[in-house]
Every structure is written in C-alpha cells, then in structure tokens.
C-alpha cells in the first residue's frame, strides 16, 4: 500500500523542492514513486501543495482522497489541506507563529525548465506577532505541532527551513533512508556545496534536526 504524503505551504517555503528530493530518493532506492504538484492558472500566490506517493509496487492514481501524513507550513496551508485528513492521518503543522515566507535567490527546485518555484510568491503578509488562529483538523488520527519556523530561524538558518521539514517527514514516514535523502540533496545542490562547503553541513544539520522533532508514525 503506497504511503501518501501531502506537503503544503506558501510559495517560497520550498515545499516542491523537498517533495522532489523525497521522490528522487525513493526512486534511487529502487522504489516506485510519484510526485505531482498542484498547479492552477495563477502560478503565483496560491498555496503550494505537493503530493508524493511511495510504494514497493506500481502506484495507481497520482492524486488521492486522504493522506497518511499531511505537513502544513502556513495558516492557509492548514485550511487548504484539511480535506486530505481522516482518522489515519498524522497532521503536522508549524506551531511557531505563521511568518512570512523566505524567498531564496538561489532557489532549490526544478530550475529553469519547469515553473520556477520563486514564481510562487506569497501575496498575504501575515503579522508575526499574531498567533496562528487557523483551525486544525479535528478528525486527524494524530496532530503534531512543531515550531519549525522558530527553530529554523534561531537554531539553523531560514534558508534550510524546508530541509528541516524534509527530515521530519523522512523520520515520520520511514519511506526512505537518511543516506538516500542525503544523496538526493547532494545531487541537487552538489555544485552549490562545492562553492560553499558550510552549506552542506548546514543542510545535513537541518535534516538531523527535523528528524529529532518527530516520531515514526506511518
């Protein structure tokens, strides 16, 4: 049975990038994987959602009604992804206040040929000082709040926020090994790491940190 993962956040938070890394890692491990982004006429400004499925056997439809794990990184993402939640879903959200998205100049992601992830810009500026007042899905099997943004800002670097989330997803689902994920990250960011070796270390620390924030649930 495929593990069904939904990742959602504001444009610029790097959701598509880590969904791709996850799917690539699974594929490299010889598993079957499907990744599909949400996409609409407005390529910019909507909630960015990625659907990933990983299985040993060939996967059916690219979309699914309910997920095994949903990760929502902004208030709007929480509302938008509620429909994928049922009694067996683990719902992970960012419990630190919902802050404005960091837009990286050297964006990770499918560059140049596919829709530029940088083009997914946030259009709402949400006040950092307000608490998150979006309703969490009550029907979820399991709700996990992690102060992701806070940790990324204070312990790591906002730049690796999404890699930290990736670590959490890898730990929670167990769909791929950490080694394989590191290889996938290397494949994508290798040349940037060559120019700045400190980045590699930062990314790996973010990955480890993310893993430490959750338990295996799937």
């Amino acid at each position, binding site marked *: 049975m495929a593990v069904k993962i939904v990742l959602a956040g504001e444009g610029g938070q790097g959701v598509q990038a880590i969904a*791709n890394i996850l799917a690539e890692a699974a594929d490299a491990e010889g598993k079957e*994987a499907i990744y599909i*982004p949400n996409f609409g*006429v407005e390529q910019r400004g909507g909630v960015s959602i990625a659907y990933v499925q990983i299985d040993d056997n060939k996967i*059916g*439809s*690219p979309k699914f009604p309910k997920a095994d794990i949903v990760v929502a990184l902004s208030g709007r993402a929480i509302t938008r992804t509620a429909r994928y939640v049922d009694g067996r879903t683990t719902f992970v959200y960012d419990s630190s206040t919902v802050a404005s998205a960091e837009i990286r100049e050297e964006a990770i992601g499918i560059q140049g*040929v596919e829709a530029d992830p940088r083009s997914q810009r946030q259009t709402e500026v949400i006040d950092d000082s307000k608490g998150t007042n979006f309703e969490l899905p009550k029907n979820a099997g399991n709700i996990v709040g992690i102060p992701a943004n806070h940790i990324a800002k204070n312990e790591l670097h906002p730049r690796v926020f999404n890699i930290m989330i990736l670590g959490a997803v890898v730990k929670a689902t167990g769909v791929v090994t950490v080694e394989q994920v590191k290889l996938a990250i290397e494949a994508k960011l290798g040349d940037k790491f060559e120019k700045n070796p400190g980045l590699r270390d930062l990314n790996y620390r973010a990955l480890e940190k993310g893993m430490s924030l959750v338990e295996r649930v799937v």
Partner: protein
Amino acid sequence: MFMSDKPIKGEKRVFMTGNEVCAWAALAADADIMYGYPITPQNEVMHYWTRLSPKHGRKFLQTEDEISAGFTTIGGVMAGRKSFSATAGPGNTLFQEPMSMAEMMRIPTVVIIMQRGGPSTATVIYSQQEVTMTTFGGNGEGFRVVYSTSGHQDLYDYTIKSFNTAWKYKFPTFVLGDGYQAKMREPLTMYDPAERGIEMVKPFPYVGKPGMPGTDRPTEYLRNTYNTEAELYDAIMEIARDYEKAAPEIIEWENVQTDDADTLIVAHGIVSRAARGAVETLRKDGIKAGHFRPITLRPFAEEELRKAASKAKNILVVESSYGQFLKLVKEYLYGLDKPIDTILRPGVGITAEEIVARIKEGR
C-alpha cells in the same frame, strides 16, 4: 537529414515529468522539427525540446498560435520531415482546423495532447474532456489514430510508436495524455528503439522531390477540395477503406481479469490505473471485478470490448468527463443488453477507492 549521435543509447531508468518524457521520446523517434505554441500544461514539452534539439540537429519554431502550429506541422511533414506538435484544451480546439486538412489529405502529423479542464479555458490542470474532439474533431469522419496513455512508460512508448503509425498508415496520429501525466514525475525506462528491434519508419516528402516537375517527374498537385458530390464520395470511401484495412494492425487494448468478471470496469488513460487498483482490491474482497482498457480510442478495439462485456453481468464506465468516453463505449456495445453504470467526473481525478465504493454500493 542530420543523423547525429543517438540521443539515448541503450536503456536507462529515469525519473522525470511526462512533458520531459515526450521531448525525449520525440528525439528517440528521430523527429526533425517541433512546431508549438504556449498553453498549459504542455509548455515544458517545448522547454525541453528547445534545450535538447540543437544538440541533436533538430529544429523548433514557436508559432503565432495553434492554428499555425498545426499547419506548420503539416508543412513540415509535406517537406518529408518528421514533424510534431503538442497542445491542450483551447489549443486543441484550434488544432481541429489543420487536423481536418491532415485527415483529408492523409498527412502523418503527430500531436501530443495534454488534456485539461474544459470547455473553454476552464482549468489548466486535468480532465479527460478532449476525447470527442481528439477522436472526431473538426469537420471530418475521425480517420485518425488516437493512443490514450496511462503513464510515463506509455508516453514514451506511444510517442515513438505514433511516428511509426503515422508515417506507415498516413493518418494524423495523437498521443492523448492529460495534465496529471504532464506534470507528475514517475519512473520509466527510456531506450533506443533500434536496440529493442523497433524499426523507425523513414519519412518521405510529399513535395519538393528531386527533378524538374512535369519533365523529370510528375508534378505534385495536392488539394483538399472537390467539385462534385460523387468525387468527394469516392475520395472519402477510399480513405475509409484504407482506414478499415489498417485498423486491425493498429488497435490496442488490455484485459485485466475480464474472463470471469461479473462487473466490467471500462476506463482509459490514467483512470485505467484506478480501475486496475480497484480490481485488485475488489478481488481480495471476493468480488469478481475486471477491467477493459482500450489503448487506441481510434480505431477502437470494438470486438475485444464486446467479448469482455458479453461475459460480464454489468458494466461500469469511469471517466473524468461528462460522458465523452461513455458515448464511444455505448456505440461499440450496441445490441448488448447489459446494465451500464457510470462514474462521470468532468475535470476531476478518480481514485481506486471511489470505484471500489461504487461497486460495493451497487451490490
């Protein structure tokens, strides 16, 4: 013709989007030139082709619109080069003008369709709402070949096959995909057709052959106009005869546990994956379901569908449209008195769970 190094040597397993797959497949099929116009969700076919093609001596032109893309593709074919295009939705609507000409004049165009919501602009995302248009669009009789792909391996295999089918039988040929296939990433194996024993049909020119026209060789006078009813009738019946003759060699289909099925699920394209999954689940629960998947929508495997349907007690037709595929199916099932249930979801993806639920409900 520029025969450079092979773009794909041997075989390799890759993980990429459907749009990229199509670009590579066209390269592997020795396509010479792509004519295209931007429309979501197939833009990336162009993006990849414009980056890859110069490295392999192939060409590209972005035209002013889809009408032009269709007619320039026809022009390319007439000059004896493997030409193709890609489009979707409203672009597909515009393509019907040139494709009518291709149908009448037996021009082997290859067009990749990534279905999106319809009608009109609708969504850029997904549907199976271009079935009627792609199979029977324009003011023609549907003398076309349409392959309905269910995933990336299909996209690769059938894009390559489309060039061979088109150039061998001379009917406009379509790869009918959809926005999900276009944008999702999944694994597939790319290969050099030669290494799998697939011989690529060589293109030939309709015009511009060597020699002085009228003296060294007959002049080519190509038209799609006729003066009398009788003349047209003869012309059409000749195309019809060729089409009927070619059909058995072209039609493709798949049977999934249909021999002893009580309920026969009929679906095509990516929805076929949900149907397959449903059969698996239902069988585990002791329900005898089966799935018939037409791969060619034109020409259609009518005999095979009737064979599978006649064994079943009832039929369930599933599609992401309001009945475009159902219409085809009903025509081919004419006379077979079986109850037909439907799941019709225009522009919406369908999952195995939904199909299972409907079949269990009905018991």
